[in-house]
C-alpha cells in the first residue's frame, strides 16, 4: 500500500515495514554552512521527518551583553552574522540610538547606508557562491569570491578589519570615508551589473540549476508569514515586506530603490529575488555616493566610549580631566533612560531585531537578539519534509542561514 506524503512531491511511501531509518546529518557537514545538525527520518531517499538541531555555536551573547556597556557590546554583534557584520553593527547602533534618543548626523547616515549595502552585496555573493556550490555549480563560487574580495578590501581600508568591523559607533561612525574608498567603490558599482550578468550566464537558464531549484521548497505567502520568515525568503513568496522601505532607518528614505518580489515561492524565486537585490544594492550605493553630504560623522550627544556615566559625574564635579580622547556625554540626561525597546533593521538575511530592557545603569538589563537565521532554520521542516534528501541541501542553502547568528 502506498500513500502520497506531500502535496508537492508525490512519492510513494512504504508503510511501517522497517525500512525507515534515522540519519544525523552534520554538524560537520560541508553543506550545512556551519555547525548545523539535522536529524532526519528517512524512508529510502524521502525525508519523513526533519528536525534541525542548533546550539553548537552558542556563546551566550545575550548574557555577555548584560556585563558590558552599550558601546562595548557592539563587538558582539560582529560575531552574529559574520558574513555581514556591518549590517549587524548598524542594526545594533540604530537600536541603541533609539533607546537613548540620539539623532545621527546626515553624513553618518549616508555612510552607514553605503556600508550596509556593501555588506549586503558581500553576503549575497557568499550566499550565491555556496548555494551554487552545494547544488553542484562550482564555477560560480570562484567568480563570486572575486567580487567579494573587492568589498572586503574596501572594508579593510575603511576600518582596518576584513570580517569583524566594529565600524559604526552609537551616534555615528568611527572613521570618515577616504577619497580612494569612494573612487574604488564608484568603479565597482559601475561594473557590478556586468558581473551579475556573468553569474546569470552560468546558472540562470542552466537546465541542471533549473531542475534543482524550480518547484523545490515551495512556500506559499501565507505559509511563509506563518513561519515568521523575513528577507528574501519571504519576498520570494510574494509578500512585500522590507524594513528598509516600510520603516526606513538611516538614509533609506532618501534614496530610491525597489523591493524585488517573487510569486512562485520556490528556490528559484528566492534566487531571482536575491540577484535582483544585488542590482538594487548597487543602485543605492551609487545614489549615496552622489548625495554624500559634508558635515560631522558623529553626533554631539553620543555617549562616551569609555565611561558613559563617569564622564558626566566628573564634569559635574568640575574636574579638568574630562575632555580627553573621544569623550562625549549625554548633555541633559544624567542617566540612561529606563524602559524597553525593540528596534529591527533589514540585514541581508532578513529582519534583525534588538530588544533592550534598560534599567538606567548604562548597561542593558536584558538584551535579546531576534536573529533571522534562527527563525529561518526552524522553517526547514516545512520545506524539507516529504522531499528527497538531495533537495535538503538546496533547501538549507536557500534559507541563507548563518549559524553564528542562529545560535548567538
Amino acid at each position, binding site marked *: 500500500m502506498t500513500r502520497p506524503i506531500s502535496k508537492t512531491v508525490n512519492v510513494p511511501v512504504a508503510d511501517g515495514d522497517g525500512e525507515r531509518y534515522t540519519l544525523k546529518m552534520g554538524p560537520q557537514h560541508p553543506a550545512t554552512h556551519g555547525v548545523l545538525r539535522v536529524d532526519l527520518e528517512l524512508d529510502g531517499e524521502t525525508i519523513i521527518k526533519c528536525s534541525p538541531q542548533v546550539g553548537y555555536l552558542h556563546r551566550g551573547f545575550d548574557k555577555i551583553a548584560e556585563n558590558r556597556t552599550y558601546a562595548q557590546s557592539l563587538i558582539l554583534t560582529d560575531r552574529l552574522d559574520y558574513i555581514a557584520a556591518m549590517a549587524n553593527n548598524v542594526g545594533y547602533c540604530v537600536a541603541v540610538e533609539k533607546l537613548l534618543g540620539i539623532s545621527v548626523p546626515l553624513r553618518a547616515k549616508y555612510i552607514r547606508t553605503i556600508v550596509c549595502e556593501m555588506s549586503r552585496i558581500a553576503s549575497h555573493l557568499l550566499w550565491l557562491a555556496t548555494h551554487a556550490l552545494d547544488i553542484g555549480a562550482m*564555477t560560480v563560487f570562484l567568480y563570486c569570491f572575486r567580487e567579494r574580495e573587492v568589498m572586503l578590501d574596501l572594508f579593510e581600508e575603511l576600518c582596518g*578589519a576584513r570580517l569583524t568591523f566594529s565600524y559604526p559607533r552609537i551616534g555615528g561612525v568611527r572613521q570618515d570615508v*577616504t577619497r580612494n574608498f569612494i573612487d574604488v567603490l564608484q568603479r565597482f558599482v559601475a561594473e557590478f551589473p556586468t558581473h551579475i550578468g556573468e553569474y546569470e550566464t552560468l546558472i540562470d537558464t542552466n537546465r541542471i540549476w533549473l531542475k534543482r531549484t524550480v518547484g523545490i521548497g515551495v512556500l506559499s505567502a501565507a505559509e511563509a508569514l506563518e513561519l515568521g520568515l523575513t528577507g528574501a525568503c519571504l519576498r520570494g513568496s510574494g509578500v512585500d515586506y522590507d524594513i528598509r522601505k516600510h520603516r526606513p532607518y538611516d538614509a533609506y528614505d532618501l534614496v530610491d530603490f525597489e523591493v524585488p518580489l517573487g510569486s512562485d515561492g520556490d528556490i528559484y524565486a528566492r534566487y531571482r529575488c536575491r540577484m535582483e537585490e544585488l542590482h538594487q544594492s548597487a543602485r543605492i550605493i551609487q545614489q549615496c555616493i*552622489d548625495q554624500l553630504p*559634508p558635515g560631522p560623522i558623529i553626533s554631539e550627544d553620543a555617549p562616551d566610549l569609555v565611561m558613559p556615566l563617569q564622564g558626566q559625574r566628573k564634569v559635574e564635579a568640575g574636574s579638568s580631566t574630562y575632555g580627553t*580622547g*573621544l569623550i562625549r556625554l549625554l548633555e541633559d540626561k544624567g542617566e540612561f533612560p529606563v524602559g524597553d525597546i525593540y528596534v529591527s533593521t533589514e540585514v541581508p538575511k532578513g529582519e534583525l531585531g534588538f530588544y533592550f530592557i534598560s534599567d538606567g545603569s548604562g548597561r542593558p538589563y536584558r538584551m535579546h537578539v531576534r536573529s533571522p537565521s534562527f527563525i529561518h532554520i526552524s522553517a526547514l521542516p516545512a520545506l524539507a519534509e516529504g522531499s528527497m534528501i538531495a533537495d535538503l541541501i538546496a533547501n538549507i542553502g536557500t534559507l541563507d542561514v548563518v549559524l553564528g547568528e542562529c545560535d548567538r
Partner: protein
Amino acid sequence: MQIQYKPKRNLLQTILHSEIMQGMAFTLKQLFAKPITRQYPQEKPEIKLGFRGQHALVRDQETGTSKCVACMRCVTVCPSRCIHIRFHEDEERGCRVVDSYDIEALRCVYCGFCEEVCPVNALVLTEIFEYAAYNRESIFFDQERLLANWDAFADMKGSAINGYINPFWRPRGIPERELTAAKRLDVPDEWTIEGQVVGNLVKRDQ
C-alpha cells in the same frame, strides 16, 4: 517590483545545449584573463593603513621606552578585558609610573577601541598579522614584548615610520577640539572635516 524570469528555451536551444555552451564560453574566456589569485606565502597581500593587527607599544624616541601614562582608559574600554596594567604613583614627579603592561592577545578581539581612547597614542595595532605560535606564552605580550613588536613594525615600515599616523590615533572626520593635544597630529587634508569627500550632486556651501 515583480522579478523577471528569462524566457523559456525553445526546442533548438534544448537540443544544442545553448545555455550550457554560453556558460562554457564564458569560462573559456576567463582562461585567458589575468589571474587574480594571490599565491599567499610567497606573495604578501597589500595591507591597508590602519589595519588592526599585532599589538605594540610605541617606543618613544626621547625616553626609549613606552609613552603610556597609566590612565587606564584602554583597560576600562576593552570589551574582552585583555589588558592589564599595574602602576604606582611617583610622589616627587607627581605622575604615574607603569610597572607592568600586559596584553593577553589570545583574548583580544581586535576592535581597536584601546588605541582610539589612548590620550597619548601609546598603543597601536600594527599591520603585522603573521604571528601564530605553538604555545600560549608566546602570544602573551608584556611590556618588553610590546615594545619589541613596535621595533619589528618600524623595521617593516622602514623610513615611512617617521610620518606614521594610525587612523585610530587621529580618527578621520573628528574635529580637532574633540581630541587631546597628543592626538592633534598633522594629517592629510582629507582626514579633516574641511577636506572630507562629498558627493558629486552636493555643493559645499561656503
